């Protein structure tokens, strides 16, 4: 415990973590750049069809080729990144919100509150993979909003668990006891004493959640239960491309690459965060 150390532990970088961050941010950056540019400009309108130039291989005018409608694949990929990013961010936000408002009180109060929240969470987690999201969308109809709510619901228990376990650990710590003895009320304890200390645990979980959410979303779009045409999404583009797997492989390669870039980028960043936080905790 030296007095001179002023660095925040989360700012500590190991070479391993920096490698993860560098690769992660480059991969993620490609997708985010595509998204940002697509807000203002795409080479062609993403859903403008052109029967005359369909299924063109990559060339100067269409660097990533065209699909069976003659739509520019590059433009569509750029437009698709918008949905991928939007759905994952909105879905994770919703899941986080649910997770936090259920997980912290469950961990804090324990007892019946905890039992009830965990029972509900476990029950939701008992639906394997994307089953619950598929069913929810099947029941309420396929739309971007429904996908976000369905995936948010599916992912909420994960965050609730993180919050609950974290809260259970933190509430036993002396500074919480101290605050309780000082007379701080439970709501304030949970919001400003406990919650800020959960952030280091929630951060990697959130990043991983973004990646997993994208996996699920693209899977649902692949099955036709996600983003609806003519809007582009990576999953739907891949599903449509399957018919042309031998004649037009570029229809698979580019969306698949972008999708993998996004997920992989997030994984690497979360891995970096994990290393950093572990090192930070050790110090």
């Amino acid at each position, binding site marked *: 415990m030296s007095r001179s150390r002023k660095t925040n532990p989360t700012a500590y970088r190991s070479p391993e973590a920096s490698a993860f961050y560098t690769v992660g941010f480059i991969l993620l950056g490609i997708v985010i750049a595509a998204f940002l540019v697509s807000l203002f400009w795409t080479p062609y309108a993403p859903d403008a069809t052109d029967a005359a130039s369909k299924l063109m291989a990559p060339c100067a005018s269409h660097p990533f080729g065209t699909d069976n409608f*003659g739509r520019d694949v590059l433009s569509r990929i750029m437009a698709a990144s918008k949905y991928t990013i939007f759905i994952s961010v909105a879905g994770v936000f919703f899941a986080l919100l649910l997770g936090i408002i259920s997980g912290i009180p469950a961990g804090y109060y324990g007892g019946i509150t905890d039992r009830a929240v965990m029972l509900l969470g476990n029950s939701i987690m008992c639906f394997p993979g994307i089953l619950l999201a598929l069913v929810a969308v099947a029941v309420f109809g396929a739309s971007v909003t429904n996908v976000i709510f369905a995936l948010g619901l599916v992912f909420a228990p994960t965050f609730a668990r993180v919050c609950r376990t974290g809260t259970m650990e933190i509430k036993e710590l002396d500074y919480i006891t101290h605050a309780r003895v000082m007379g701080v009320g439970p709501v304030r304890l949970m919001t400003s004493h406990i919650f800020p200390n959960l952030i280091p645990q929630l951060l990697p979980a959130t990043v991983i959640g973004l990646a997993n959410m994208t996996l699920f979303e693209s899977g649902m779009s692949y099955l036709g239960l996600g983003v609806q045409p*003519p809007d582009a999404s990576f999953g739907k583009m891949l599903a449509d491309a399957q018919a042309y797997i031998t004649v037009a492989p570029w229809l698979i390669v580019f969306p698949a690459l972008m999708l993998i870039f996004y997920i992989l980028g997030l994984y690497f960043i979360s891995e970096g965060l994990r290393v950093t936080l572990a090192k930070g905790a050790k110090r």
Partner: protein
Amino acid sequence: MQHSVTKILVFATASVTALGSLAACSKKPDDSNSATVGITQEPAVFDPHTVVAAGDEEIIYNIYEGLLKFDHQGTLNPCLATEYEISDDASVYTFTIREGVKFHDGSDLDANDVVYSLKRAAGLLDGQDNVALVSELDSIKAVDVTSDGKVQVTLEESNTELLSYFTTGIIPEGYDNCQAAPVGTGPFKFDSYNPGLSVVLVKNDKYWQNGLPYLDKVTFKVCADMDTGLTELNNGNIDIFPYLTADRAAQLDPAKFNTLSNGSNMVQIFALNNSVKPLDDVRVRKAINYAVNRKDIISVTMDGAGVELTTAMSPAMGSYYDTSLNGTFDQDIDKAKSLMAEAGYENGFDITCTVPSSYLIHVNTAVELASELKAIGINLTIEQVDWATWLETVYTGRQYETTVIALTSTYAPYDVLQRYISDSDGNFINYNNPLADDLLRQIPVTTDPAARTELYHKVLGLLTEDACSVYLQDPTTITVVSTRLEGYYVYPMYVQDMSTVKLSGN
């Protein structure tokens, strides 16, 4: 330790590869006297009178036969009836029943079976409350056996157009278990149904047409969609796959597969609900018609394999089709724009297109339409719904703005057009023109063929003039048949006739 661990790894990898090669050798050439047909719709109904979906019709065409039967050229031929007579006022139809025909259960076909079947279809049996199972046969008043063993059908009013509905399947008298155990007189007998997988039919040895069928067994295998069908074809799991698009068919090895095509006699329609704003304005509807490029739609959805339509009938209908209407709505964006402006929509409007998600061609058409309509400022949002919802909200409920669908029909021209009568059940576009109603009502009671043709032309002219919807194309049916088979004919209807199919060279 490292050594032994490496060994485990090598073993693990080796066992995975060994199993992998098993997968490769499981495929062997098929030389049995059977054929597998790929279908994309789950078969659900095997009752010839309650069948609704075209996909079910495909299969049961081989199990049941009617008094009459279409051939692949669309000609109506005698089948279980050897001949028929229509009274002058077209209100009484009399059929002579073929002799020597046996049902799959071994019983002989007689007039009573026909009477039972027709009554059942027309809802005339006790306890049916007069609700026709086959709605077109609702107009039948009575079915009787005449003294000389013929079957006499009496109608409530004259109808010259009813003949093609006597293709309705005939089942044994009193039989009511067609759903679970279909019994008919067709070339194939029902063997088994594995939900979600396949329907198996076997040869009817006692089929009344000598020498037919050739095959011992026909399997209808459910493929999730056209693309799985394509891969299954490539893998040799199925021999016949109908309803491919041209570009997909082109991917197949021509040495292994023959590609057959035929007009489908379908009318693909971009249906506009005539009773919602702004589609109630004929100028808007015309503008949309002018904005659409039918050639591009055919190119995108069918890879060019389709016939452009400007009116409610396919040119395959021969003389009933009015060739003078060709080219009425060739794409003309300027004209479309000025029509929009005239109607007060120079800035366009937003509109929704509700399409059944299970039909890729319609979804794709909607995608192309959305892109084309942007040119005149119309912002088309696509809403995909499942088939059941589509039927409920669009077709029956008529709660929609636009949709894309294909209207199938038999070869009866009246079948094609009667839906445009304003109070018809099938008038889901809410077309309402008293003049057209009047003309359409005259058709069944007009016995002179030339006058009837004239009436048809007038109706088609009216529909085009009112631009009641956007008629897009008659998509060509492309069927791919393995070269190990021959004798397959593409029907202009939604059926698979397997009776004439045989192994090549036999």
